[in-house]
């Protein structure tokens, strides 16, 4: 056994930290804040990463990627999330839209989209969830009605992150309501400026851009915009989302926040109540376990057991997110609710608490992850 990530991964970690230190302003809390300069920061940082072959590190070089190892990708995931995701909204295009295009896209689709994604020039959103279909995506109601060689799409999407800023959407719609459930859906690659698409932001505790409604009113889509086969959307969606199987390295931001808070407190750390310091110890242990579960899931790669291993890692890391959020709020006590640049750690704790509430909901709820772990342990639930 060997838990060394390797010299290339260690070198990459240092390189990324140096880059972030030089390029990202102190107190940066991500692209989705009320300050438009944060969004601009992520746009310029993405272009910088792209020019160094780091934005699409995991991609093959032929598509503009860096051809990085799985452990370099792991380090990239950790460092980006630890530093409040300075890639902003780009990660969706990088992490699964691009890989899905490589597997299912036509030659024309690849030529049109992949180099733009790897250069950090385009933002994608994901038109999956609907008011009546959240976790149960196969039941979505947005209809694509045949129209000549293409379709006309009508329906509503919800919770769509980055829809306001995105220029493209992977849109899931029902192309055959009479087909068996797994064969009803198709995926379309649709430009967001197409007539009939309206985006309405939803105010939320997460901050701007995270949640939107997207209304589709007789939107024209064309035959060459189908990703994969018509009627095969459910399979493509499931396989594409598996590219993101291990998910966000939430443990890395938690470890970073605890480290930053410890430095911020200095000797005052020793004056914290013993019960808080003991919780701090337990949090660090749980984070180590979450990290190791993630490493295990990464190392399994295409093994049949990788899915359940990834779900276990997600359960561990998302619950750590909320555990650390509560711990840091209790550390700050009466100043916990302070936000903005004048708050301790530039408001990173308050920001983390808000965002942590979504940890067990976003990208597959913790209930779904439990179902997947239980399925491996107990077999299928009829």
């Amino acid at each position: 056994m060997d838990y060394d990530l390797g010299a290339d991964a260690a070198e990459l970690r240092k390189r990324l930290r140096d880059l972030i230190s030089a390029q990202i302003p102190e107190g940066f809390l991500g692209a989705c804040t009320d300050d438009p300069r944060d969004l601009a920061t992520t746009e310029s940082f993405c272009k910088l990463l792209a020019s160094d072959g780091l934005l699409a590190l995991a991609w093959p070089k032929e598509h503009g990627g860096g051809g990085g190892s799985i452990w370099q990708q792991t380090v990239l995931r950790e460092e980006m999330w630890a530093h409040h995701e300075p890639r902003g909204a780009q990660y969706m295009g990088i992490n699964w839209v691009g890989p899905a295009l490589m597997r299912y896209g036509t030659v024309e689709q690849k030529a049109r989209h992949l180099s733009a994604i790897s250069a950090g020039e385009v933002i994608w959103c994901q038109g999956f969830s609907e008011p009546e279909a959240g976790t149960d995506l196969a039941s979505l109601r947005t209809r694509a009605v045949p129209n000549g060689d293409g379709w006309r799409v009508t329906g509503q999407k919800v919770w769509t992150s980055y829809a306001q800023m995105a220029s493209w959407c992977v849109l899931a719609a029902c192309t055959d309501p009479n087909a068996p459930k797994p064969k009803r859906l198709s995926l379309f690659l649709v430009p967001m400026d197409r007539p009939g698409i309206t985006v309405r932001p939803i105010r939320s505790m997460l901050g701007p851009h995270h949640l939107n409604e997207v209304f589709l009113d007789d939107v024209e889509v064309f035959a060459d915009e189908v990703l994969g086969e018509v009627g095969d959307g459910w399979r493509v969606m499931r396989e594409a989302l598996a590219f993101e199987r291990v998910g966000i390295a939430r443990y890395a931001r938690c470890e970073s926040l605890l480290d930053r808070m410890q430095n911020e407190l200095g000797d005052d750390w020793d004056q914290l109540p013993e019960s808080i310091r003991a919780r701090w110890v337990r949090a660090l242990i749980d984070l180590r376990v979450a990290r190791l579960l993630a490493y295990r899931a990464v190392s399994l790669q295409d093994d049949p057991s990788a899915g359940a291993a990834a779900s276990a890692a997600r359960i561990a890391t998302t619950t750590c997110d909320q555990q650390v959020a509560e711990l840091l709020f209790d550390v700050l006590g009466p100043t916990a609710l302070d936000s903005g640049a004048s708050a301790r750690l530039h408001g990173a704790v308050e920001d983390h608490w808000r965002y942590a509430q979504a940890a067990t909901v976003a990208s597959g709820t913790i209930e779904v992850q439990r179902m997947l772990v239980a399925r491996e342990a107990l077999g299928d639930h009829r």
Partner: protein
Amino acid sequence: MKTALPEDITEFAAVAAKRFVRFGGPQTALRAETEEHLRHDAWSALADLGAFDLDVRSSPDDLLAAAVLCQAAGAAALPYPLVEELLAIDGARLALVNPAAPRIDHGDLPGDWIAADLDGTRYHVQPSSRTSAKLGPFLVPATLTEPEGIVPAADVDMHLTLGSWRILGVVQQALEITRQHVTARMQFGKPLAEFQAVRFTIADASVAVRGLYELAKYTISRTESTAAQVHSADALILRLKAVDTAHQVLRTAHQLLGALGFCDESDVSVLDRHTQPLIRLPVSSEILALRLIPGVRGGQLETLFSQPVAAEPV
């Protein structure tokens, strides 16, 4: 990075598990509460496996073999102080004790004992006799002499680590027994495993056990590569997690097995009762957490962001 056990170690673990099944598993451990010769038979099983030829102090491969042996012993509730004998000093088994209330599991077995507390303070020890307790039936109160020097910190660390591997075996086996029960037991016309509450409870226990397994592998793989203080923190971390996981998984097992889980004819009862000394002693997980507090600022609790800890002379 390689997160899987080496193949030869996996094979050795399978052989050990098979030998302990031949010994009789938890039901033989139950009989050993009253049939003295069975603990000698447990020793013979270990000797057959070459347990006492393992040089855990100087051979990383042997330490890894010892770890999976302890894991298999935990799953079988093997009634023998394996960790204590693997770490014997000059032929005397090494027990980890709490000087405030010294207790030694299997302390009544023939042979010499020495004791150490978590700080490494060494004591000569005089075990008394068993008390026929239900929890920890082989646990023996002991009397300590005045401190007599120290044992190496590495020995204390290995004791905690190998004991944690034993707990790992216990919780893996308890989860497997529970899995078998909920898939077989019918209530309201269907297996318990079809109730979502049961499935979620099993999922949570499964995540806890998976996490402990990864932590156990990680910890034992680092014994050669970290500073001594970090290694000591690693051992405490593993033991704390092992104890917390045991609380969760054994509670889950009892709840899902219902009344059956309290009966000695169920292996869960035997695993739980016989493992209590390892879970509770020498100190609780709360005390382990308190011992780790200085390691947060000291950097011994390593994270992605902590500064490397300089090695100190041992």
